[in-house]
């Protein structure tokens, strides 16, 4: 008996590790609770054991598929060694995938840099920009035209920009001088010092809180010259540098033909690793654009969960769209109704001859609160001003 219990315990620990491989973080406390739970259910009934494990170990719906898979493996393994091998196998597989990915990424990055330097009218442009101070020129230089060093400089400047989101009055009250509602508890407390005479009236007022920000970025083929840098921008917004962050919650998505949530990938502290992880998640990088379908997915799956607290939504796209235009208009309208402010950023808007006539833009514009350029650093500063005072 002791031996089989020992087996069971080892299996349990291994199972916990197996779950972690699928990035389902299980705490030791949860494992301990599971052991306690296993004493309460019939171990011969697979369904009960599984339900018990799931109730204790899983706390998010999106982890359920991996849990189901891992549990099947756990249930089939007869002795710990089998599980151990299994876990090792999975870890190795993951590791090789990651190195392969990293190598690919590096290649891709190098290609991108080379491409940028080979512009034919390079010399003309340099001549023109000499009129301004170098920094000022850089601020106004189109992202698509940046060269090696400038690119690094822009990334550095982006990281130092301070983003501040407008606050929203919440329904939570807090004590304040001259607040509009009477704080009876504090008033009464104070009055006791004067034998119950209410001399000081303490007020309460609504608390203010930063609005959440949702960024939805087009990474299809037509956005290619901008998309890498724009991901950098999204990363910079998600990682405020100062002690008093001007943003509270930032959610980020990318889309081409489908929608990909990047919030977790971009939460990684290291810039390069964050962007690599994001690039890996995106399967439709540089492909076609189906904005309507992507927004529809956002509306159906995410909007109710993310737009609850007066969020501002930024869509970054050039509006070249090969998808269903009717759908795009419809979903823009729905999105507009469910957020506080809908801002469309278009890199092409920086060009003086640009006319917003593409089918996508025409369908989307009626439902947009602000239509702004996003092609250089100056335009980002302009965006910053808008976000601070919506």
């Amino acid at each position, binding site marked *: 008996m002791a031996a089989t219990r020992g087996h069971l315990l080892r299996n349990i620990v291994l199972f916990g590790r197996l779950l972690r491989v699928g990035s389902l973080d299980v705490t030791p406390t949860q494992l301990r609770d599971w*052991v306690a739970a296993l004493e309460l*259910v019939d171990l011969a009934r697979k369904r009960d054991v599984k339900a018990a494990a799931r109730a204790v170990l899983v706390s998010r719906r999106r982890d359920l598929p991996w849990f189901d898979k891992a549990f099947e493996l756990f249930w089939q393994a007869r002795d710990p060694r089998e599980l151990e091998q299994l876990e090792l196998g999975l870890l190795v597989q993951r590791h090789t995938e990651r190195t392969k990915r990293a190598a690919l990424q590096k290649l891709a990055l190098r290609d991108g840099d080379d491409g940028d330097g080979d512009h034919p009218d390079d010399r003309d442009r340099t001549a023109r920009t000499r009129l301004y101070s170098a920094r000022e020129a850089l601020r106004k230089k189109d992202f698509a035209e940046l060269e090696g060093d400038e690119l690094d400089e822009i990334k550095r400047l982006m990281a130092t920009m301070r983003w501040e989101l407008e606050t929203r009055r919440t329904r939570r009250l807090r004590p304040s001088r001259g607040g509009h509602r009477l704080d009876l508890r504090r008033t009464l407390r104070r009055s006791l010092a004067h034998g119950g005479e209410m001399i000081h009236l303490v007020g309460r007022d609504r608390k203010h809180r930063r609005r959440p920000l949702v960024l939805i970025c087009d990474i299809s083929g037509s956005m290619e010259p901008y998309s890498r840098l724009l991901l950098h921008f999204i990363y910079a917004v998600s990682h405020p540098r100062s002690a008093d962050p001007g943003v509270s919650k930032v959610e980020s998505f990318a889309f081409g033909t489908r929608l990909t949530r990047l919030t977790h990938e971009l939460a990684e502290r290291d810039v390069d690793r964050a962007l690599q992880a994001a690039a890996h998640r995106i399967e439709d990088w540089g492909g076609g654009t189906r904005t309507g379908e992507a927004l529809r997915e956002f509306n159906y799956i995410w909007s109710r969960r993310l737009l609850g607290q007066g969020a501002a939504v930024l869509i970054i796209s050039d509006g070249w769209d090969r998808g269903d235009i009717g759908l795009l208009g419809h979903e823009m309208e729905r999105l507009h109704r469910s957020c506080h402010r809908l801002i469309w950023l278009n890199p092409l808007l920086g060009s003086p001859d640009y006319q917003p006539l593409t089918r996508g833009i025409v369908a989307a514009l009626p439902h947009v609160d602000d239509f702004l350029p996003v092609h250089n650093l100056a335009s980002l500063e302009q965006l910053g001003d808008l976000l601070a005072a919506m």
Partner: protein
Amino acid sequence: MTALPDFKHPDLPRDPRFPDVDAVIAALRAEDYIAERDLATAIYLSLRMGKPIFLEGEPGVGKTEVAKVLARCLDSELIRLQCYEGLDVSTAVYEWNYRRQLLHLRGLEAAGVADARTAVDDVFSADFLLERPLLRAVRQSRKGGAPPVLLIDELDRADEEFEAYLLEILADFQITIPEIGTVAAETPPVAVVTSNRTREVHDALKRRCLYHWIDFPDYEKEVQIVLRRVPEAPEHFAAEIVRLVQAIREEDLFKHPGVAETLDWTNALIALDQETLSDEILRDTLGVLLKYQDDLDKIDDEAVRRLLRKSRSASD
């Protein structure tokens, strides 16, 4: 090989009424709640391990109902806290009865008692305390008898501040009132937390709980639910209704009808003296099932005919 260390939960309350999962299923069924076995297992563990249960799922799948039914099964009081943004201590935990406090102070003054010290002690004592759901749950569980069922409904509507406070409460069911002291529960209440996922609830809180995602029931379960809850509905009609609702759930809609909608619809059809579904009646009563204009637009005459055909062919 190491032996199994003693990981037993400190005090597993042994309730003779629920020796195993099957007993929970039977007890829920006796109260007209048809639960999937997985949900019953989670409830059973929550009762035995004294851990809160966290229920997530689409609106209308019966999350709140679980708490109500549990209270009836356990024959204990249901204490409900409906969450909203800005929910604070004075509405969730306790509040002082200011009117009485003021009157009392005036009384003291009239009687010529001027000692401020006694006034403070008097006025901030248990007599002047108004208990709100959380304090009530903790206090009730001290009075012997069955611990109450505490329903914290739609936690996703509350803000992060309240969530942080709740994390503390759920950890040890202990409330500190500065003026009086600490009140702790003897046996923790049976806590049920629900969320519609309009906002992601923090992981730390979910980890303290037993988590269960309630899905829409399958066909057989849903027919059973309808028959239990709307006994006037003939069996063949209930089956027809459920087949249609399940067909609608396969449609590409913004918001799919929940079990609550199935029950409302059944009641509506019975009230209209219907015994079978037709194009016309489905069109006229679609508003009971679908609550968004876009969804209603999508289910046009052609879609109605298609759905009816589909649900009829499923019965063969």
